[in-house]
């Protein structure tokens, strides 16, 4: 049988449908395990003024309570490999910046005993005014959401040679485009923060080996990446940690940067017993990273027959209280702000903004789900404002082989034209003959006005 193209059943599918696949929570150790629960911040922003776990520690069944002081390296960045500095503590030190931020964790004989101990920890807070609206982050009197300020202060990498505090993409001559345009269409687009909501909540089982190594059964989407995190927080080389990849009950991006592996491991290190941390559904919804909310403003310079000559954007990405992958998402977003179209003159500007909410993180379509929304809303509005066919506006401006993206990438096999033609046919839309005959080959000028040929050919480059 030819393997490529075959509709083979899922490799591990027989286990899935018979209940025999072992997810992390299904693993049973002969020696049993302790259970973990976390003390989480009840405030959006506060200073921690006192912390007393002595009562909690004396409760029955409690084996260990850990705070930031128990974590060998409490602050470690998820994008350290890209040179992005660290900002997020594994366990809060003297302040909390979002509701649900972990401050301490307990290992006990049962989930109930662990929760009872968490409830018995005495903490006093001094509340601060939180910041929630990205659009107010730049106000002179805005509350401070992050110790770096209200937006990521450098996109260049290392703190030392900070680089710019915003991501910019510029190409061509936007002034020319706005001058030449018959119409400029401006809109504001706001995709919401949403939950990954995998059916399996975050769960980790950390098992100390007699040799001193830590074995973590993990539901991570990226076991080497996660192993690196655990090892870094524990301050051990990579052979000090072994991550065992079990089945993963859905991820969608939310299990890329989970802290559950590391916190379970620190508790296991301290108790020298296996520790399992299984997040409740409520924790999964309220305390795990979300897809970011975005605020996007766009102005497109267009001709009356639907050529997009130029685009100007302003994007705010709601990173939440800590950076996680937000610099990556913001950069990726700006690389794709032209959508599936070739726009010769652009100026894209984006900020990663901090607010006092759960840090946003990777999710399916990371950074680009929002660009699809802005690009397509704009094209649909342009077609409406100019009273043109939305299929034809797309085909006109479509990416073609050899076209240059705003960041100067030259396209090799862009399929805007074939996918629009295919969907039009299936939807029963009759395209005009010149659009039906269009291909993804470089523009010949047949549909292109004479005066625009030169602009398109040089990809808008000066």
């Amino acid at each position, binding site marked *: 049988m030819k393997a490529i193209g075959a509709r083979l059943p899922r490799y*591990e599918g027989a286990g899935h*449908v*018979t209940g025999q696949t072992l*997810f992390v929570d299904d693993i049973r150790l002969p020696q049993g395990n302790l259970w973990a629960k976390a003390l989480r911040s009840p405030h959006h922003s506060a200073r921690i003024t006192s912390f007393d776990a002595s009562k909690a520690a004396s409760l029955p069944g409690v084996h260990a309570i850990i705070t930031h002081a128990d974590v060998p390296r409490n602050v470690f960045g998820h994008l350290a490999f890209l040179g992005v500095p660290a900002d997020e503590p594994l366990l809060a030190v003297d302040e909390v910046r979002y509701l649900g931020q972990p401050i301490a964790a307990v290992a006990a004989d049962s989930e109930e005993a662990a929760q009872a101990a968490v409830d018995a920890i005495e903490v006093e807070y001094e509340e601060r005014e939180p910041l929630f609206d990205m659009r107010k982050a730049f106000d002179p009197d805005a509350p401070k959401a992050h110790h770096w300020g209200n937006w990521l202060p450098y996109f260049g990498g290392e703190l030392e040679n900070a680089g710019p505090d915003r991501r910019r993409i510029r190409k061509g001559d936007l002034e020319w485009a706005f001058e030449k345009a018959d119409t400029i269409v401006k809109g504001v687009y706001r995709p919401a923060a949403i939950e990954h909501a995998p*059916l399996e909540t975050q769960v980790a089982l950390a098992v100390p080996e007699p040799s001193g190594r830590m074995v973590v059964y993990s539901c991570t989407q990226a076991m080497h990446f996660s192993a690196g995190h655990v090892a870094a927080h524990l301050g051990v080389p990579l052979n000090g940690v072994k991550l065992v990849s079990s089945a993963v009950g*859905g991820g969608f991006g939310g299990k890329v940067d989970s802290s559950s592996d590391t916190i379970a491991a620190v508790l296991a290190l301290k108790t020298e017993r296996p520790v399992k941390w299984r997040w409740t559904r409520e924790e999964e919804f309220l305390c795990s990273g979300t897809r970011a909310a975005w605020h996007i403003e766009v102005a497109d310079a267009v001709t009356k027959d639907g050529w997009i000559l130029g685009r100007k954007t302003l994007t705010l990405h709601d990173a939440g209280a800590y950076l996680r992958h937000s610099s990556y998402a913001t950069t990726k977003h700006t690389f794709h702000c032209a959508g599936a179209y070739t726009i010769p003159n652009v100026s894209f500007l984006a900020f990663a903004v901090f607010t006092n909410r759960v840090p946003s993180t990777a999710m399916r379509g990371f950074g680009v789900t929002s660009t699809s929304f802005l690009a397509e809303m704009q094209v649909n509005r342009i077609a409406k404002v100019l009273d043109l066919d939305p299929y034809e506006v797309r085909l006109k401006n479509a990416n073609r082989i050899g076209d240059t993206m705003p960041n100067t990438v030259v396209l090799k096999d862009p399929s805007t034209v*074939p996918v629009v033609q295919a969907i039009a046919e299936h939807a029963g839309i009759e395209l005009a003959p010149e659009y039906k005959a269009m291909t993804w080959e470089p523009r010949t000028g047949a549909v292109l006005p004479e005066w625009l040929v030169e602009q398109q050919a040089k990809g808008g480059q000066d």
Partner: protein
Amino acid sequence: MKITVNGAEHELASPPLTSLLNALRDELNVTGPKVGCQGGNCGTCTVLVDGEPRRSCLLPLAMVDGAEVTTIEGLGTPKRMHPMQAAFHFYYGSQCGFCAPGMITASVALLERNPNPTRKQIQNALGGHICRCTGYVKIIDAVEAVARGESFDGAELTRSRGGEATPKGASA
């Protein structure tokens, strides 16, 4: 407290207010039914109690004393799958596998009550079961296939197609 699970009788030591889900998983090590929400909202802990689909996370043991419980493990095994399990397998009704234990047991119960459901009836019957991966299409396809009496040796479903793709981008 006594219950029969997948044909085997058990005397349970867990307190009477323990949920059936926790007793199955923690006392009997029957881990097929999953902990998805502990609140009856996701469906992955669904088991058959005397043939009826029930959310085991919401059922205290005291209410199932003497009952016959069938979990996903009791329906079939990898070598001897229940037709519904085989259908989910070959139709990709399961991706990550976490909702399948509840989705499949509820589907079995649905066909017991209504051997020839319409697509709408399947959607309504399984509407309380959340799946984040599949978009549900292939789950419904699987249930319909079982209702049609399709057999699942996989020969037809796993066939490979001939030839290479023809690029369509170059010409209209």
